[in-house]
Every structure is written in C-alpha cells, then in structure tokens.
C-alpha cells in the first residue's frame, strides 16, 4: 500500500521491541468475539490510475458550470477564481497544518485568520469578526443562539425572504434546543412587512439582503424598531460580492452580520466545503461562537498572533461554551483571504459592478421574452422571474437544451404552489453576451414563442 511506509520486517522488529508476538496482541482489550477475523466485504485497494478511472467516470456524469451557459445561484455562486489562489492554498504548510494551537509554528495560519477577520469586518462594516463558521446557514443558526444569550429571550423572527435552507437550518436547531421561531410568509415580489412581528418577547429578527428573491433592503428602519423592542437585528448575506456594491448591513444598524463567503476564492463543489462569516459589535464579542485570532507579542517583543478569548470555547468551557464548534473552515478562509487580497478595494468594486451589469443586461433581455415577468425593482446579481408554466419543468427543459437557467423556487419551497412559476436567476462576471443570448433563445423555444 503506497501510503504505508512500514515493511513486514519493520513490523516484526517493532513487535519484538514492544514485547508481543503478533499484532493481535495489541488488540487484546477488544472483546474476542467482536474482533473481525477477516476483511470486510469491500473491494481491495486500487492504484492511483485505477482510482482516477473510477472517479473520472463519476465526475463525467455531471455537467460542470463552466461547460454551459450558467445562471444558477440562490446561495452559491459561480465566480472566476484566480489561478494563484488554488496554488497557494495547496502549499503543504497550509494544507497539512492543524488548528494553530502551537502559535510559534503556526504564525502563517494565524496571520491569515487575522487578515480574514479584518476583511470581513471591513466588508460588513462591523467591529469584529470571527475566524469562520462552517457555512452561511450554520452561521445564521449560531447568530440566533447568540441573540438568545444576549437578550435572554428565546423567540426568533425570520423574514419570509430568508433563504429557505437557512430558515430550515435555524428551525431544526431551534426546535431541538427548545427555542421558538416565527416565520413570515415569502414575499417574492418584495415589500415584506416585518414590523408587526416585533414585540417585547422577540430575541432577534433575521433578515437577508440581497434576499432570496434578489431584492435589496434598507435595514435601518427595522434595526431601529428591533432595538426599541430590545431585540437584535441579524443580517444575512449569501452573496458576499454584493458588499462591493451595496450598503453594508453594519452601516444600517445590524447587530450581527453573517453570511456565505463561498463566492470569494471557493469552488461551487456541490455545496461544500464553504466558509461562513460572522461579524458583530465589540461589546458582544464574549458571546460570539467560534475561534478568534488576536494580536500580541512574543518574548522578544515581536508582533505575533494567537487564538484568544478561548474561555468562550468548548475545549476550555465544555458545557458552558458559547458553541460546540471546533473545526471550522480554515483552508476556505485562506482561499477567501487570498482572493480578496488580490481583488482589493478597486478589484472588488469593479467585480461587483461587472456582476450587476451582467445581471441587469440579462434581466432586460429575459423580460422581452413573451410571458416572462421580472419581480424585482432592485437587485444585485440575481433576480426572480415569473414564467408562464411550471418553473421546474422549464428549468429542466432548458437544461436539456444545454442552458442551466436558474433555480425553480419549488426546488426549495415544494409545498407552496403559489411559487411554482418562479425562477431565481443569477448572473456573474463569468457570463458573456453569447451566454445571455443562448438563454434567451432557449427560453423562447421552451415556451414555444
């Protein structure tokens, strides 16, 4: 086996040194009748070549985003990632290192975590950010738990236009933890009225912007009303590139800002691994979940970084910890940080403009298709269209024509027939004029125009 360095002679010599006669002696603590005598009913090991063959054939059954005109979003986005990002994250000192518990030999990891925390704070216009969560949805669930700790209340109100997967993740955790969740109805055309759900019992209000259907929201009014009722405003952002173009939630009064960082530096990868970000105000830092990296000095007075405030964390506080999270998204954080460093202010803003311009161009083209209606007044790189027919069938028919044209809302909301004619369409910098023309043409053909 190519990954195992010991030879049979080594094994014999080592058993001799240990003072036992055979390998079975090392498993003597296992009850005899539970020790497997032979091999399990699974194939024997394969060479690299054979594994490549198997995996290559499985991969070939899937349609990569880069191979077709591609307009699928709804919480994960196809962006171009510079080649240097993947090269750097495969540096083995990054790839094969552990959580930086020995800071003297982990300054590389710690410094990029510090850079990431700062980048997230700047993007969201918040005071502090942590070193990452698993993804945007789990970050949102943790934000609700944190709001419950801070407010000492246990009722969360979720906007109807929160991503349904985020809603369900919060609902699962809340139900099992014994907390209450109130969910507003979806408003695909925008114009949700959440005010009436805020009262003195509410711990937090969870609002997404741009929302699941693409609408942009000024959160200032909601923040004021939430604060007046003693509740926190949690803002969710599933497309971090939007923060290069729109007002950040921190500037509109949000108390906690969470979201999905996949768009920067990370592949689509069928939904994971991704990188959740989590930012809040300085005064709430001791109730934050997850790891935090802080600046300090070493014995010689040189600047260095360490994991800090770990008295919040499970390995120190056990059942009194702010969260059970341990491993998070280290390498995805690195990819994010490198890509964001490459972009910088100038690049991010241009990337955001390019995304917005492409989405506007696509929306203008699609509304010309007879029967297609655009539901958005405002949007960033994603919007919702109403189609004359069943959205799922139309998306499937588009796929048969080689265009991946978006997400039918029914894929996530199957029990709401009133949403069955809606498609969420995303367009990023990867789309060309030809892609848009192909979409428009295919849609006309599918609709029989």
């Amino acid at each position: 086996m190519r990954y195992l360095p010991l030879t049979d002679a080594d094994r014999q010599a080592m058993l001799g040194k240990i003072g036992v006669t055979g390998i079975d002696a090392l498993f003597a603590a296992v009850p005899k009748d539970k020790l497997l005598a032979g091999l399990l009913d699974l194939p024997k090991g394969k060479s690299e070549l054979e594994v490549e063959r198997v995996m290559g054939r499985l991969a070939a059954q899937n349609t990569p985003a880069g191979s077709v005109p591609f307009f699928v979003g709804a919480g994960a986005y196809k962006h171009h990632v510079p080649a240097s990002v993947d090269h750097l994250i495969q540096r083995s000192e990054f790839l094969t290192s552990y959580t930086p518990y020995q800071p003297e030999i982990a300054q590389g990891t710690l410094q990029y975590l510090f850079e990431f925390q700062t980048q997230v704070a700047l993007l969201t216009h918040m005071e502090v950010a942590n070193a990452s969560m698993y993804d945007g949805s789990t970050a949102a669930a943790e934000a609700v738990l944190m709001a419950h700790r801070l407010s000492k209340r246990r009722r969360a109100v979720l906007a109807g236009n929160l991503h349904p997967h985020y809603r369900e993740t919060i609902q699962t955790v809340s139900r099992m933890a014994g907390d209450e969740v109130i969910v507003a109805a979806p408003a695909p055309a925008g114009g949700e009225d959440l005010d009436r759900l805020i009262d003195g019992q509410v711990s937090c209000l969870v609002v997404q912007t741009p929302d699941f259907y693409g609408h942009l929201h000024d959160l200032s009014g909601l923040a004021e009303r939430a604060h007046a009722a003693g509740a926190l405003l949690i803002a969710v952002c599933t497309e971090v590139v939007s923060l290069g173009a729109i007002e950040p939630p921190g500037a509109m009064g949000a108390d906690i800002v969470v979201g999905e960082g996949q768009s920067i530096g990370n592949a689509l990868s069928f939904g994971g691994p991704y990188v959740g970000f989590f930012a809040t105000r300085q005064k709430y830092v001791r109730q934050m979940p997850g790891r935090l990296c802080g600046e300090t000095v070493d014995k010689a007075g040189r600047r260095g970084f360490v994991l800090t405030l770990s008295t919040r964390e499970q390995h120190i506080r056990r059942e009194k910890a702010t969260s059970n999270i341990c491993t998070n998204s280290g390498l995805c954080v690195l990819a994010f940080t490198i890509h964001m460093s490459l972009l910088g202010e100038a690049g991010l803003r241009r990337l955001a403009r390019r995304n917005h311009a492409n989405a506007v161009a696509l929306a203008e083209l699609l509304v010309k298709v007879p029967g297609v209606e655009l539901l958005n007044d405002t949007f960033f790189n994603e919007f919702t269209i109403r189609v004359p027919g069943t959205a799922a069938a139309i998306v499937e028919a588009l796929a048969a024509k080689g265009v991946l044209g978006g997400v039918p809302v029914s894929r996530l909301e199957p029990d709401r027939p009133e949403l069955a004619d809606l498609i969420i369409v995303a367009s990023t910098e990867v789309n060309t004029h030809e892609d848009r023309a192909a979409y428009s043409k295919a849609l006309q053909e599918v609709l029989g125009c």
Partner: protein
Amino acid sequence: MLNRQDRPTTPGEEVVSALDTFSTNRGLSIEEGLIFEIGRSDTTGVDIEEPPAFAARLGALARREPLGLPGLSEPETMRHYVRLSQKNYGIDTGLFPLGSCTMKHNPRLNEGMARLPGFADIHPLQPLSTVPGAIALIAELARWLRELTGMAAVAMTPKAGAHGELCGMMAIKAALEARGEKRSVVLVPESAHGTNPATAALLGYRVVAVPARADGTVDPEDVKKRLSPEVAAIMLTNPNTCGLFERDVVAIAKLVHAAGAYFYADGANFNAIVGKVRPGDIGVDAMHINLHKTFSTPHGGGGPGAGPVVLSPALAAFVPLPYTVVDAGGLSYVEHAGKRALVGARGPTAARAASAGLAAEAPVQGSPAGGDAAQARPLGRLSAFHGQMGMYVRALAYMLSHGADGMRQASEDAVLNANYVRSSLADLMSAPFGAQLCMHEALFDDAWLDGTGITTLDFAKAMIDEGYHPMTVYFPLVVHGAMLIEPTESESKDSLDRFIFSLRNLAAAARAREVARFRDAPRFAPRQRLDETRAAREPRLRWTQAMARRQAAE
C-alpha cells in the same frame, strides 16, 4: 488611504534589539507585514473589464463609503502568502504526533480528484438530472461508511465532528420524543472531548460526569450508578482519549440500552479500529466520523472537516435532510420529507455504477433501515445544500486507494507505531495508567517531571526546537500535565526511531534539570513564546489605523 509610512517592518526603519539583522529577516525566515500594511486601495491583482455604462438597479442602496480594503498585485500576493506558509508546520514538514487529531498523510491524488470539474464545478441547486454522478458518489461513500461501521444508516451532511455530534444527539432526542419521552441528562466521561458536553448542553441536556477507574477506562458500575429514567444517552469515545479501548464497552452498551437510553460514540479515534472492530457490533447507536481524521481529508489549518454520522436501526429514521436512498427502485434523493426524486432508474444507475467500477448493488444509505422512506422522520436541515462534497470525494478516493485490506493494515500500523513509541519512552517518562498496551496513541503524564522545574508545556516547546510538532498537551483533562502522542500509520520505522532518539535526549535533559533548554524554548521557531495573557486582556482582533500608528510609535 493606507499610510505606507506606518509599516513597522520596513527594512531599516526599526530594528528589534533581540535580532541581529537590519531587515529583521533571518535568511530564509522572512518577516512579513499584514496585507493592510503592504497593500494599497488602488492596487489589484485581478484584471476585470469595467462594464459599459448601464442603468443600475441598486435603488437607494448603492454603497456610499469606501471599504478600506487593500489590494496586492499577483507577484506581491504570491510572496506574501508563500512567506506566511513558511511560518507554519505541516504534516509534510515532519512528524506531527498530535494526539486525538490523527495527522496522517494527505494523498495528493485526493486533492486532484476533488478538483475534477465534474465535482468542483457543479452547483448544489442545478437540476438533479445534471449531477447523477455526484449523488452516486455520496451514496457510494455512505455505503463504505456503513460497511466499515456495521451500522444501518448514515447522515452524510454534518460539516465537522462537532456538527456530527449535534446531528447524532438530535437523532437521539428525536427518537426519545417519538417514544413520548423527554429525558434531561447526558452522561459524559471526564476524559471526553469538550465538544461532547458542549453539544449536550446546546440541546438542553444536563451533563453528568462519569469518572475513569484506575486503569483509565470507564467502569460499568460507575455508569450503572448514574443511569435513571432521566438519562437520554451516554457519550463515550472509543478508543477513549487516553488511547485505550474501553474493554467493558459491550457491558456499558447493554446497561445503557436496558435503561432506555442511547449510546453515542465519539468517532474521533476511529483510526485505531477501522477493519478491526465495527461500532455496530459493540452496541453503538450513533457515531460521527471525522473524515478529516480517519479518512485523511486535509486539516487545512483548522478545517474544513466533514462529520457524517452512522446510525443504528433504532435511530436510522431520524436522519437530517437531504439524504440518498438506494433500493430496488434505483438511486433516489430526498430533499424534502416524503418527497423522493429518482436520480437514476435501476438499470441505468447500475450500468453507470458498473462502468465507474463501483458495486452496482449498493444497499440503502443515509436513509431509514429497510429502505422504506415512508418510515423516515427526518430531522430537517442541519445546513444548506448537501454537505461537504469536496471532502466526500477525497475520503472516497482514500477508501478506494486503501481498500478493505489497506484500511485494516493502516489501523494495525497506527496501533503498532503508537505502541512502539510508548514502549521506547516508558523507562524515561511516566504513564498515568501503568505499563499497559495502548491503541493508536500513547499517553504520558508529568509525574516524571516532578521537581525538575520543567512543565509539560516547556517540554512541548522544546520539541519544536528539535524539529517536531508537539504532541497534544494538557488533554485529556483527567491526566495531570497530559502528553498524548499519536504518530499515525504514516511514519516509517526510521522516522519513529529519530523521533524517539530526540525525545529520549530531551527527557534525559529534563531529568538533568537543564532548565534553560526548556524554559527558553522554542528558540528556533519563527516566534518565541507568545503573550497569550496580553492577547486576552486587551483583545486586538482586527487591524485598525490606530494599530498602525501605535506600532509606528513603538
């Protein structure tokens, strides 16, 4: 907007007296500022064409203020992050005996496979008809996990070990509720990982500790004393965090089940027993598997991980959404309770599986026992989308590469290596539970350092100077000054011999009270010991302009 005059590490500007070069660099060890100090707001390393003029649709929400983000050109970016990487220790650098973390070799084949466009460049919400290979891969990995553990079902979606614990404990809570019961207590041995009590507490359980007996394992009598109709589960790590197989695990499982409670196993130490013992055969009801430990997906400086949870027949109905089902009807996928989407009919699926070199007759996975989706009582979602696909690809590539024979051999070698290290150090260092064999990790305490003025931490830091990553220290908490050494199967005998040589010399130096060697360690790392107290007392969690000004002043 960034004042580059504030760079504290600019050559020649400021020389820390402890260092002996003008630049503060030392040959290949090069100091590197933060991107906020070396970047500029008008620099970018990505060429993006400015769009032609268009009518924006941002309403009143166009961003008003600059972000303050620095940018770097590509050559600057390469140099910055390469220099940072050189301040890190990884598995490829040297022996990384971090107990409980299973720092084994990360095959690069697996990295390549995860980057195939058919896996890396597919969207979680594109039509299922365009991703049958992805669903088949999840189902196939689930089949391997079921077979390796002897369990009925797998919840694939949890994103790391602690997330898996949450999933498994939710399944237990849901199963109790389905029986009309509400229990309030979870038993956790004192030696457990901190995630265990944290998870139980998150779900509202009161944690009751179970002590270890003199030999480091849990006594069934101690469990029995704490069992009651209020106990929902025991969370037991096996092999435990002392590196010992819980020899009475079967008796403990029987007691727990007789009390109407469930047996949650922390699978962090599964690497000791793959292909040797199946958790399903010793009474486990739920166990998470850290794909980033046992199945070698890279730790990546603290993630991403993946934590699928295998479930016994008693819990198999309580899987989170989404999940795969393989039965007589073929391969299908469940994203919503009660709604199955066929991904491939039996014929084509079987043909596809066969053409890919996989077993065509895969049993039910990630689904209720018996394959009857109608019995499923899904927990709901634990996260968006389908779990950690990139990690699934790597883990399956690991499994295919090793096969049933290679994985069994790997576990045997891991246990052999740990015992070799243990027996080679036993005369110099003290073991808390006497001279007994261990599983995949060897545990020492600090009794042998008594009176030397040297602590476990000092000893660990001195290992850095010898070119090794320290072992896990001060865990498990039940052992004073614990040193937990897990060499893994990836080390050759020669590598272990050199490691043992270094540790024996260090131990001899400690016994000879060569205090300076330890108290000043590490001397040869990119940083000496860092002031963690100061970091916690005055938290500086991000770069600010004020920080730059302060450093310039210092």
